[in-house]
């Protein structure tokens, strides 16, 4: 197992290298540059030339890339932001990432705590009204995107009922351990609507997947064997069926984890949350090259690590899966 993990981590390096290279080159061949401003804001050519010289943008791309890799590997430095003067990509990430992690992990917790039980109940009571009801709610849940869910919740609970604030996030740096917020009332009041917006879709897809997978597992021969040898129904379901049926659920949790932890643009945008999601989108439009590459690299690191965790979980869930 240890050897497998080491081999996988070594495999990360070419993948991450390729992603950084592709993003690095791609943003640079895109038409337009980081200092093109239209109209009144446009900069004199001499200023642009100075800025480009400062950031070595006149050099050949391979040279820029070598410089970037050197800073990244040796100094863990993702470079300066071209748009937010005086701020580095490291600073932007360390400010915004904790907030996205808070939002994402709460939403994922909500998704699991509703989705798993709902999916299990639906599967165990297959073809009963309970099953039809929860399956219908789940399919409705996956059909409502956050760009619809967010405004609905905001309109009802923030604008009409005035229960929760309309926007912003209720916690600020410095965070405990770097990412844990102080759980004040203000924090929860701000958190509820975005967490529910993000969490409903997650819980619905988790519920659907759990139901489908558990239904398949329940028909396996070893479940019949477990029942035949007189195990309690609870033990059959929890120890034998549930554990084995979790493989497809864990499979989607990997990419989901990476996606929600590094920020979801729409939810953050709708509720005005200063998370990392915004930077993914705006940096591309701004041609803020280091922010584009830095955030993409960060997301990819989350993604490959999450997928590794998924594969390790497989071996625990199903001992027949071996990696030697």
């Amino acid at each position, binding site marked *: 197992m240890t050897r497998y993990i080491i081999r996988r981590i070594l495999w990360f390096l*070419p*993948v*991450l290298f*390729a*992603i950084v290279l*592709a*993003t690095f080159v*791609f*943003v640079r061949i*895109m*038409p*337009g540059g980081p200092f093109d401003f239209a109209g009144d804001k446009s900069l004199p050519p001499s200023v642009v030339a100075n800025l480009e010289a400062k950031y070595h943008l006149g050099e050949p791309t391979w040279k820029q890339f070598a410089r970037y890799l050197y800073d990244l590997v040796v100094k863990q430095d993702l470079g300066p932001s071209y748009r937010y003067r005086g701020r580095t990509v490291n600073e932007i990430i360390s400010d915004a990432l904790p907030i996205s992690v808070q939002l994402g992990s709460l939403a994922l917790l909500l998704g699991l705590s509703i989705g798993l039980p709902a999916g299990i109940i639906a599967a165990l009571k*297959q*073809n009963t009204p309970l099953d039809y009801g929860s399956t*219908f709610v789940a*399919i*409705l849940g*996956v*059909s*409502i*995107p956050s*760009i*619809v869910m*967010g*405004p*609905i919740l*905001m*309109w009802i609970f923030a*604008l009409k009922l005035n229960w929760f604030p309309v926007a912003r996030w209720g916690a600020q740096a410095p965070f405990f351990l770097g990412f844990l917020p102080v759980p004040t009332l203000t924090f929860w009041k701000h958190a509820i609507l975005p967490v529910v917006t993000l969490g409903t879709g997650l819980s619905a897809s988790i519920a659907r997947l759990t139901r*489908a997978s558990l*239904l*398949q597992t329940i*028909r396996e021969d070893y479940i019949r064997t477990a029942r035949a040898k007189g195990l309690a129904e609870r033990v059959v379901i929890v120890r034998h069926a549930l554990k084995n049926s979790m493989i497809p659920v864990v499979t989607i949790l990997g990419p989901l984890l990476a*996606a929600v932890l590094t920020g979801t*643009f*729409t939810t953050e*945008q*709708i509720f005005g949350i200063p998370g990392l999601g915004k930077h*993914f*989108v705006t940096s*591309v*439009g701004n041609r803020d090259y280091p922010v*584009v590459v830095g*955030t*993409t690299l960060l*997301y*990819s690191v989350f*993604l*490959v690590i999450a*997928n590794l965790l998924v594969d390790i979980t497989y071996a625990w869930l199903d001992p027949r899966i071996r990696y030697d």
Partner: protein
Amino acid sequence: MSAVEKAARREKARIAFEGARKERTPFGDAMRQLLKNRAAVAGGIFVIFIVLVALLASVIAPYGFAEVSFADNYAAPSSKYLAGADYLGRDILSRTIYGSRVSLAVAFVASTVSLVIGLVVGMVSGYAGGRIDNLLMRLVDFLYGFPFLIFVILLQVYFKALSRRGSGIFFVGTLIEINNQMGGMLFIFIAMGFLNWLQMARIARGQVLSYKQKEFVEAARMVGAGDTRIIFRHLLPNVLGPCIVSETLAIPGYIFTEAFLSFIGLGVDAPTPSWGIMISEGYKGLRSYPHLIVAPAIALVLTVLAFNFLGDGLRDAFDPRLRGE
């Protein structure tokens, strides 16, 4: 017994025989199963309905999608504007009707591209086996690490800049022209298919691997069928079913991605309407004009819901393991 009588009796016997052995193909079984599933049938009917709406948009929409009337900006729903009017006084119902075109275009274009690429790669990989299989599957593993949404955003920004700048090369110029006709989304729809074939390739490969050892393939090879004939005549029909089902289930994702791109301002060019862009405009005016968002939001949710019901029904019908007793 006359010869005519004999012929008639033989004919009757043949018909009875044919009737008795009326085939029950797996496909026929699946279709019967599908038609019993009321939610899936309703989903299918709604999908057909939306396709008709998109095709006949110019006939059924009460106004043009770009018809501006400044006197009516932010008009509330009334008999004149059934779903209200937006910030330029454009009829929201008409824009919602025209908006179905973009959502269906992405559903069709992205899924077709992804299906074709996935089928080709997966079938070649599974059929050839050995080194080619290994190489292609390593490529798939490698690409799995790539962040899909970020590359969609990067590509769309690139395409937008490209279409503004135009191109001297003849056929690229023509393509850009077609793209602009479609509200500037054609390239990104194709790109979404190009980025999303990995799952499809894995399914197609798995199917080919399980079928290529079957007797009917061996029999075909024995009577002298070449690789091309085996792939197209014998393997493709069997592989296609699960792939189409899986692609139907991917359609809501494509529709959401288009809505997301439009929402963040990287979608259709104004004044082409898309549900994502209308929701984006609507949520900004939520406090004062909540009606702006209603029609596009309902249209988006119902369409995705219909595709989900249809896809679920297809999957249940084609995968007997999920059927209840």
